[in-house]
């Protein structure tokens, strides 16, 4: 990982962008699931979007921002094409169950935790390092929350994706 953002505002802008991208993606998923009448999963994604939105609001408040800062030219330099906390668009299925959704959320939180940890190690700015460690700890809390949540939902049966009226016939 490169040294990343050099100042605290640059770092917080990056953290904010990560949260806002996660809000957008979870909202897209929630809308799509509602459209396909998978209401339980839609509700879960909506909740995830709300959580990420709260984190974004906290960052805005903490920095005294009223608008999100403009992204730097060339983007934020995420390790992957999208921000670490963003679930890739193709990882959902219209018949998925809450367990699947929480697995995706868990993976996203773990990526975010690792991202902040690596950034804290790589940065040469003490203020960025402190903030990165703080956010890493917050992401770790989220990881534990999602894990606890996962224990409360049933693991899907092996045939969870079986649709009696599938869009695509193979035989």
């Amino acid at each position, binding site marked *: 990982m490169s040294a990343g953002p050099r100042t605290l505002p640059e770092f917080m802008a990056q953290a904010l962008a990560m949260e806002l991208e996660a809000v*957008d993606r979870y909202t897209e998923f929630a*809308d799509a699931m509602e*459209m396909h009448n998978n209401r339980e999963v839609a509700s879960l994604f909506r909740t995830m979007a709300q959580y990420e939105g709260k984190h974004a609001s906290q960052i805005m408040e903490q920095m005294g921002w009223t608008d999100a800062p403009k992204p730097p030219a060339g983007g934020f330099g995420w390790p992957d094409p999208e921000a670490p906390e963003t679930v890739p668009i193709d*990882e959902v*299925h*219209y018949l998925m169950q809450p367990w699947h959704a929480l697995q995706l959320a868990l993976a996203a939180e773990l990526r975010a935790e690792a991202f902040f940890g690596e950034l804290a190690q790589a940065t040469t700015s003490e203020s960025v390092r402190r903030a990165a460690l703080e956010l890493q700890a917050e992401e770790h809390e989220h990881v534990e929350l999602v894990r606890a949540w996962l224990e409360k939902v049933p693991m899907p049966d092996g045939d969870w994706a079986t649709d009696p009226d599938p869009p*695509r016939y193979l*035989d």
Partner: protein
Amino acid sequence: MNDVATPTAVLVAANYKSGYKPIWCPGCGDFTVLSAITKALAALQLPPHEVAVVSGIGCSSRIPAYTTCYGFHGVHGRALAAATGLKVARPELTVLVTGGDGDGYSIGGNHFMHACRRNVDLTYIVMDNHVYGMTKGQASPTTEPDWDNKLSPGGTGIRSFHPLVIALASGASFVARAFSGDPNGMADIIAQGVRHPGFSFIEVLSPCVTFRPEQREWKNHVHAAPVGPTDDAARAARRIMTDDGFNIGVLYAGDRAPYPANPGTATRVPADFEAEFEL
């Protein structure tokens, strides 16, 4: 124009999204194309009322309704024809054209070539998933010849259409390839396409997770084009013909002068045309 966004000092992507929710399958690549378009428009700070999104028919052609820009959801394969007329008559508008591989390369194939040839200042974004998704999974012009499915057992055996080379050979002055799994990169490419004067063609690899679930693997194959764009069409053609189909980025940016807009002066009012259609 859909729900007009309240003007704000700085436009953000959300200002370009309408209240209509996409009906695409969860996991569809078209979601991120919509997102990339809104991010590109925000990056360009183009007010929604100065942008028109024109489409034909198909899953991806639903995009105009999902934006707050002016929209025209037209006839199958005729999006480029409608957009050409619009841009020539209203040159002050930024005109985006969106659609899929069936709409653009088959039903609208001839319009595609001639739009490239005319070089009107349009940005054409094709979400290519190598299948007709809306009609439940028939082979499209870009489908691989050996794609075996119930509707084309053993595959069609027909060579795939090569849209980027066709675009280049037909005269498009900007040719790029993007990937739906990289919406931020795609937004940058779309913004470059909009800025480019003349016909900009952006082919987006946008997996159909329902009828081509194997396309989820595309994310493991795409990679940034190893070299930057060239303005030499022959060199671009060689690169595109010999690449693996997964090079992402602007591949060609020429400087051919765009078709000049000439809105002229209207001598008839809309009621005159309506009268001609009266029964």
